[in-house]
Structures are given as structure tokens and as C-alpha cells.
């Protein structure tokens, strides 16, 4: 079920997420320590292409990674197969990507 292609996609997205999570946590700690308000944070992220790429990449990596993981769980635990399994995988990917990229757009546009 989990072919080499899906396996590599999940590992590569994990490798992408790891430094981005560390960066995210580091920035959050820095922002809280410095006493930044929400308005001040938005002032820094809005219009920033760098933050849009940072969190946009993270949202896409999460969407791919989670969709493959949930696909495996649905197959092994709920016996979902073939078309239904593909549909669920793509639906999870589209949902997570839409939510994630929507949030990124909201704070960086």
C-alpha cells in the first residue's frame, strides 16, 4: 500500500518540516519574550514574501505528510481501499492545504 514513492514523499516532507518547526518555535519564543502584540506581529508578517514562503512551504509539507499518514491508517485500520482510499487521501491534502495556505495568506497578504 505504502509504495516507495509515497514513502519518500512522506520522509522528504518530514525533512522539510523539521527545520521549519524549529524556526517557528524559535520565532514564537522570541516574539513572546519581546512582548510583541498581535498587531505588531501582523505588522511584520503582512506583505512579507519571506514569511509567506516560510509558512506556505510548511503548510504544503504538512498537507502532503498528513495525507499519506492518514491514508495508511485508513487502509490498515478502516480497510478503505482503491478509489475511496485515493479520494480520502486527496481530500485530506486539499482540506489541509486550503486551511493552511488560507491562514498563511491571511497573515502575510
Amino acid at each position, binding site marked *: 500500500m505504502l*509504495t516507495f514513492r509515497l514513502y519518500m514523499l512522506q520522509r522528504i516532507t518530514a525533512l522539510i518540516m523539521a527545520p521549519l518547526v524549529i524556526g517557528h518555535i524559535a520565532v514564537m519564543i522570541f516574539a513572546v519574550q519581546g512582548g510583541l502584540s498581535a498587531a505588531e506581529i501582523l505588522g511584520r508578517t503582512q506583505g512579507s514574501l519571506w514569511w509567506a514562503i516560510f509558512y506556505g512551504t510548511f503548510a504544503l509539507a504538512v498537507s502532503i505528510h498528513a495525507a499519506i499518514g492518514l491514508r495508511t491508517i485508513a487502509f490498515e*485500520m478502516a480497510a478503505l481501499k482503491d478509489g475511496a482510499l485515493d479520494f480520502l487521501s486527496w481530500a485530506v491534502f486539499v482540506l489541509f492545504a486550503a486551511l493552511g495556505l488560507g491562514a498563511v495568506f491571511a497573515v502575510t497578504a
Partner: protein
Amino acid sequence: MSVTTHQLEVSIWRGGAGGGEFERFGVPAQVNQTVLDVVSWVQQNTDPTLTYRYACRVGMCGSCAMMVNGEPRWTCRTHVSKVTKDNRLEIAPLRNLPVIKDLVTDMDPFFDKWVAAESVHHPSMTRRDPIKPVATDSLARLVANDGIECINCAVCYSACDTVAGNDAYFGPAALNRAWTLYNDEKDAGQQDILDAVSGEGGCHNCHSQGGCSHYCPNELNPMDAIAGLKRATVKNWLRGK
């Protein structure tokens, strides 16, 4: 063997492919007694229709594996005293395999998956070539040596939760064999093996839960072999193959 006075309460699964149920037997407990001894006692003294499989009785042939109190065991080398719970034994056919009758499972899916995983010898020479010595101290040979004592008992296959949830998954034994052949300098099928273990039933389905390594009666480590195959497929991909 010395006989003690008490009886073991033994439940043995009876039935076929269409279903069945546990049947209870009283078996005289002995000081030195294996689970296979218990099954044999029932078949020889209480119910001659009880069907089970065994051959060597010394842990060589791999034919007598069964579920004992819910865990896969090689019954000829499993002492009753180590596995009884409150004087009770529950003996069932191996998990993850179709039942033929009573304690006998159909091993075809298990061995079909060995072949599907390319766990077969791919000759690198003909019989007319001179015999080439194997370098016994090479790293590949040492890695292969770690996995070659498999007796095909299917205990690991039965212990594997991934097999339980994924019919296509080759399982630990087939992949362990594929890994030993991949590291065998006299096997010429390395690419065939990597292609086979990269498909639907391949090594990438393993979640590294380790049931196989925990229960392997020969203390092999199929989980480590599967991790080796995963690394080999990634290296192969990075080389553009």
C-alpha cells in the same frame, strides 16, 4: 518424565475455514513439558481427530508454530511452565494465515510472498564455473549472516500487526530473506530485489513496531533487515536507478 497430580486446563481451537470454537481438555501436567507435548497428548489420548502440524520437535523445521495464550510460539521449544496463566493454556492456529483445520494453517500466502519479494536465489554463475570462495569477513556477509538462520516458522508473520491490517504486505520473514540475499555476493538479483520490495507489499509498509524481532524464536531481527532494505532502496533511488 515425572507426572504431577494436577491437570492443565487446555483450550484448543477446533474448526476449519468456515469458523470454529475453543474446546476444553484436561491434560496431566508434567514437570518437563512443552506446548507441543500437550497438543500431542490430547491427540493421542483424548481426541485423535485433532489436527496439528509438526516434524522435527527440536526447533529446526519451523512447522509447529501456534498461538499460545494469544502469542505466537514455536510449540516444540516452548515450555508449558513458562507460558501458562493461572494453570490455563489457550492454543490456537497462527494469526494472519487462513485456517485449514484446527491448529493447521495454510502456509501458501506466507511462501507466495517470499517469491513475490524476490526472496529466491538469482544465480550469478553456472555449474561449469569454478567455485568462488565467499569472503566470510566482508561487511555484507556479516550482515547476511545475521538473518540466515530463519526456519520459516511464520511466528514473525503472525506477530506482525502490519500484516494483520494489510493483506498485500510481504511480512517480516520474506523481507528478512530478501535482505540476506541482497547482501549475498553470490546472488545476482540485487536490483530485482529492490524493485520487488519497493512495491505495494514492500518494506516501506513496515511501521517498525518490532513484533517480529520480539517473537522470533531464533532471536533474529527482521525489523533491522527491513530497515536495511529501506536504506538500500533510498540509496538506489539517489543513484538514479
